[in-house]
């Protein structure tokens, strides 16, 4: 979380990213039932830039497309539209040697500490795999030395390399995941809900470890989470997503302390109040609609207390509010809401 060098171009740029999934029934059923093809717009019109050494956090509820963005950025999914530039190189177009070179510089940490490590592999092999595949190290001795160093870096013992994943707790497994991600010496780390499967006391360990590593290694991060308090702790910039679109984007303090979009306000209001101040809530009803057929106009309008005829008809475009914040909301743009 070092201050951004404003002169250097951002490390990661997403331009108008979109990803659709075909969720149609099998063609025979479609034929018989005369159903049309159905597309799920998991991500649409997502654009952002992550400066070197900074952390962008994407926050939103399930089905908002934040994990899909993570997979688009790392090249696990191919975008339906738009592109991702990593240090000026188009990630989706880069194949062969160029692709390998890009991939070595980006790594990912996953949500589920039980599914993200191959249960049949020893920890040492798991951690060494990216380094070996991408030829960062050569030979057994060099490889073992790297594994020992990485394990120590994440707070484990070098001897743990000989054990299997099931011998570790959830938090320790997440440390192994982090060690694996670091083994190819990446510059960019995508963290997809890395602590949401962990207990709070362990979550703190992992978040602190990530913060330390980021400072020490100068990593650039994309952090995906549904927890605003966690996001506040890790992020420099925050993007709020709702039904596949970024509805608000800006520096952390601006977004969290002066939220513009009604959905951001709702999310902030829903955070349980640990201090028990008994603050009054404006309970917003409704739930996230099915992303297969989202509401017309602004996708948030059925739940929005400020929605009017325009919101129901016309999807709002992103609008720069002059305070470094980007918002997609008619009400904000028209000044209808404070």
């Amino acid at each position, binding site marked *: 979380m070092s201050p951004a060098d404003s002169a250097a171009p951002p490390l990661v740029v997403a331009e108008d990213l979109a990803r659709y999934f075909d969720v149609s029934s099998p063609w025979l059923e479609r034929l018989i039932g005369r159903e049309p093809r159905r597309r799920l717009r998991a991500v649409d019109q997502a654009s952002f830039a992550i400066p070197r050494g900074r952390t962008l956090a994407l926050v939103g509820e399930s089905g908002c497309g934040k994990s899909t963005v993570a*997979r688009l950025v*790392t*090249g*696990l999914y191919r975008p339906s539209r738009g592109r991702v530039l990593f240090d000026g190189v188009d990630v989706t177009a880069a194949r062969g040697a160029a*692709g*390998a070179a890009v*991939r*070595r510089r*980006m*790594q*990912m940490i*996953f*949500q*589920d500490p039980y*599914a*993200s*490590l*191959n*249960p*049949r592999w020893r920890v040492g092999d798991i951690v060494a*795999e*990216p380094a070996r*595949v*991408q030829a960062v190290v050569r030979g057994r001795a060099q490889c073992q030395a790297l594994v020992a160093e990485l394990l120590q870096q994440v707070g484990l013992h070098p001897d743990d390399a000989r054990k299997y994943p099931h011998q570790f707790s959830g938090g320790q497994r997440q440390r192994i*995941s982090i060690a*694996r991600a670091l083994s*190819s010496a990446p510059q960019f780390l995508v963290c997809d809900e890395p602590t949401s499967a962990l207990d709070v006391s362990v979550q703190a360990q992992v978040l602190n470890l990530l913060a330390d590593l980021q400072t020490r290694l100068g990593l650039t991060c994309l952090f995906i989470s549904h927890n605003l308090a966690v996001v506040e702790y890790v992020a420099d910039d925050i993007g709020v997503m709702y039904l596949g679109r970024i509805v608000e984007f800006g520096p952390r303090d601006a977004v969290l302390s002066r939220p513009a979009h009604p959905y951001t306000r709702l999310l902030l209001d829903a955070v349980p109040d640990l201090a028990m101040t008994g603050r009054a809530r404006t309970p917003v009803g409704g739930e996230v609609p099915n992303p297969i057929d989202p509401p017309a106009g602004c996708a948030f309008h059925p739940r929005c207390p400020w929605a009017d005829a325009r919101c129901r008809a016309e999807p709002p475009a992103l609008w720069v509010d002059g305070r470094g914040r980007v918002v997609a909301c008619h009400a904000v743009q028209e000044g209808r809401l404070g």
Partner: protein
Amino acid sequence: MSRVAAWLDSDLAWSFRRSPVTVAAAAVALLCVGGALLAPWIAPHDPFDLAALDLMDALAPPAWLAEGRWRFLLGTDDQGRDVLSGILYGARISVAVGVASVLLSALAGVALGLLAGYAGGAVDAFVMRVADVQLSFPAILVALLVDGVARIALPELAHGAAAFWVIVLSIALSGWVQYARTVRGSTLVEARKEYVQAARLIGRHPAAIVLRHILPNVTGPVLVIATIHLATAITTEATLSFLGVGMPATTPSLGTLIRIGNDFLFSGEWWITLFPGLALVALVLSVNLLGDWLRDALNPRLA
């Protein structure tokens, strides 16, 4: 802890020791398979040594009956061949056919299942439709078909020599589907897990992902299927041989022995068919019981 000690301490070994039926089944299976493997060394006679056969010994009853001789513990057949030795040699062929066809169908099924599950799309659809078609033919029908084709294609002499492989191929042809379906299902589950995504992320070749990452995680059910399939394969072979399309009388399997003995059942020489039959039941039942135990022991929900 050494490897052996570690294994003895494992949950699998523990559940094995706790089940007397399984221990007994294992003992019987070991006896059958061991007897079959060691037949040339432990059989009292060599039933294939034509020079040693003496028609004077023909149709001797088991040793404990009147006219029985201790040289021929379970009696002899119409050619004067010792039934016990015949069973040991026959079981050897039955087990060999079973193991070979299980290996062949497992190999094919696992490979196709991995391919279908990981590649998906048209490849998946094609493999699974072929499997559906395969499944709509009963195993016996497939075997009869393959045998028929082989009889037409091969000269009489070559067919006798190739009978073993013809049977193995027929059984494997109907057996691979189960492996393929199971492995495809597990592959779909594993491929969605994050460790596979992590491997894709670093640009590992799909073949490496399938073989190094997914394969080790889908082998549990394969082991269970293979054990139960071994029993089925031995029975199928016996059925085919009994119907006369299996192993020829010159290299008889248990099924062939039962068929030969069947002709003498009504003339009172029951031992020629009963003892090979009992051996077959013991072998198949014990292997089946082992398979059932393995299925339960490897299933975490029942444990």
